C-alpha cells in the first residue's frame, strides 16, 4: 500500500471502516451494555427506574426455581447436543466419504434451506404431527400401536431441538470431515486399521476442531431457544429462555429478565471458550 503522509486523514479507508463501528456501536453494543446495567434497575409500581441495586440479583439467584431451570436447561441442551451430534454423524460420514462431490453439494444446498426457513411453522407442524390425535398416532393406530403422549415431554422438546439444529450440525460435520487429508485414512487402512477403528482413531481426531465447533453451535442454539420447550415440551419444566419470556412479556420485570439473560450469556461464554480451547489444544509436546 502506498504510504501516505501521516497528517492527511484517509477518507477512503474511513468511509469503509466506520459504518459498522457506528451502527453496531449504537445498536448492538448499546443494547447489550444497557441490559447489563438494567439488571441493577428497580421496578416500582410497574415502572422501571434506573438505579444501582443488587436486589434483582439476590432475589433471582436465591430462588429455587431459577436454579432448577438453570440446571434443567443445561441438562436438556446437553442431551440435545449429544443427540444431534450422534444422529448427524452417520449422515455426515456418508456425505463426506461415500457421496460424490456433486451429491454432497446438492445435499448441502438442500440442507441450507430449512436452516433458513421458518422454524416457528415447522415447530407448529410437529406439534400437530405429534399430538395425541395427530398424524403420527393416527399412522401408528393402523398397526394397533399407541396412542403415545409425545407432546409436553422431554421427547417433544428434543424433537423441536433436532428440528432447529440438525441441518446445521450435519452441514458442519460434513465440512469438517470432508476437508481432512484422505491420504491419512488410506495410510491407516494400509497399516491394518479396520473400518470402524479408522473412524475412532483417525477420522474423529483429525476432524476434531470442526466437530467441536459443531457441538458448540448446537449447544448455544438449544440453550437459547424458547420455542421447542414452550410449544413441544409444554414448558413442564421451564428453561431459562422461557423464564426470560415470562418475566418480560407477562411480568414486565425486565431487570429480572436481564439477570437471567446475563447468567445465560456467562454460561455460554464459558462453554464456547472451553470448547474452543479444547478444539485447538495441541497435544502435549507437539508443535
Amino acid at each position: 500500500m502506498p504510504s501516505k503522509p501521516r497528517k492527511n486523514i484517509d477518507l477512503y479507508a474511513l468511509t469503509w471502516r466506520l459504518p459498522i463501528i457506528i451502527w453496531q456501536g449504537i445498536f448492538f453494543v448499546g443494547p447489550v451494555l444497557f441490559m447489563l446495567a438494567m439488571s441493577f434497575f428497580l421496578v416500582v409500581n410497574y415502572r422501571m427506574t434506573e438505579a444501582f441495586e443488587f436486589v434483582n440479583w439476590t432475589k433471582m439467584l436465591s430462588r429455587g426455581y431459577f436454579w432448577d431451570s438453570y440446571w434443567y436447561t443445561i441438562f436438556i441442551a446437553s442431551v440435545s447436543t449429544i443427540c444431534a451430534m450422534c444422529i448427524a454423524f452417520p449422515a455426515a460420514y456418508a456425505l463426506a466419504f461415500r457421496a460424490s462431490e456433486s451429491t454432497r453439494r446438492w445435499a448441502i444446498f438442500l440442507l441450507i434451506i430449512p436452516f433458513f426457513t421458518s422454524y416457528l411453522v415447522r415447530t407448529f407442524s410437529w406439534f400437530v404431527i405429534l399430538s395425541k390425535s395427530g398424524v403420527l398416532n393416527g399412522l401408528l393406530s393402523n398397526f394397533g400401536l399407541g396412542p403415545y403422549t409425545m407432546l409436553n415431554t422431554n421427547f417433544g422438546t428434543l424433537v423441536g431441538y433436532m428440528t432447529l439444529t440438525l441441518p446445521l450440525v450435519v452441514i458442519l460435520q460434513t465440512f469438517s470431515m470432508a476437508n481432512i487429508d484422505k491420504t491419512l485414512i488410506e495410510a491407516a487402512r494400509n497399516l491394518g486399521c479396520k473400518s470402524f477403528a479408522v473412524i475412532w482413531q483417525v477420522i474423529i481426531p483429525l476432524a476434531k476442531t470442526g466437530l467441536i465447533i459443531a457441538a458448540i453451535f448446537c449447544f448455544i442454539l438449544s440453550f437459547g431457544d424458547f420455542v421447542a420447550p414452550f410449544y413441544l415440551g409444554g414448558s413442564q419444566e421451564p428453561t431459562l429462555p422461557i423464564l426470560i419470556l415470562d418475566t418480560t412479556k407477562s411480568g414486565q420485570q425486565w431487570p429480572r429478565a436481564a439477570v437471567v439473560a446475563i447468567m445465560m450469556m456467562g454460561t455460554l461464554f464459558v462453554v464456547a471458550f472451553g470448547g474452543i480451547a479444547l478444539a485447538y489444544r495441541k497435544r502435549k509436546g507437539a508443535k
Partner: protein
Amino acid sequence: MNANRTLNVILGIYVALIFAFVFAPIIFSMIFSFNSQRFPTIPLGNFTTEWYVKILNDPDVWEAAWNSLVVCTSTALIATFLGFCTAYSDFRYNFRFKGPYLALILLPPTIPLIIVALAMLAWFSKIGMSGQIYSIIIAHSVLTAPFAMAVIRLRLNQMDPDLEAAAWNLGGSEWATMRHVIVPFCKPAIASALFLTAAVSFDEFAVSWFVSGLNKTLPVIILEIVQGNIDPQVNAIGTFVFLISITLVVLAQVFLFSRQLKSIRP
C-alpha cells in the same frame, strides 16, 4: 465387496431419513393447508382452499405481509451495505484493534435470540425508538450483517490480490477502482448476501415479536395464532412463508455458485 455395498445402501437410507425428518414439517404444512379438517390427522379430509381464502381476506395478514416485505428488503439493503464495508476493510487493511472490530460484526449470531430481543426492546424503549417498523429493520440488520459480511469476504478471497493495484496503476483512483473493479467483482456475492439477509429477516420472529409493538410482521402473526388454538390458517400462511423463504435461499445459493457453473477463475 458385498459388505461395502450393503453399508452404502444403509447409509443412503439413513441420509434419506434425515432429510425426511428435516423436510417433513414443511411438506406436512403444505399438504394440510389444503385439508378441510380443522385438526390435521389421518385419514385426510377433503381438498379445500378455504384456508387460503380466509387468510387472503384477512386485512391483518395483508398488513403483516406488507410489513414483512418492507422489513426484509430494507434489512437486506442495510445489512449487505454494512457487510460489504466490513468485508472490504478486513480484506484491504491491517489496523490495530482489528480483532475487536471483527467481533463487533460477528458476535450477534452467537447470542441467543431471546436475549437479543430483550436487550433491543429495553434499549429501543430507552431511546424512544421502540414499536416501529424501523425498530425491526435496525434489529434485523444487526443480526444479519454477519451473514452478508461472511459471503462477501469469501468472495474477496477469490480475488487476485494484485487486481486492485492493477486498476490504480492504470489510472484508477481508489474510489474509481471501488466502483469499476471491486464492486463488479463482488456482484454475485452482493446479490447472494441480499437474498440471504432477506431470508433470515423474513423468518425472524423472536426479536420482531419483542420489538415491533403493534406493527407486526408475518412471523409475529404466526406466533400469535400459534399461541391460541390450533388454527389451520397457520398452514396456509406457513406455506406462503415457506415458499418465499425457500425461493430467497435458493436464489442466494444460485448467485454464489453461478461462477462455478460458468467457468473456473482465470
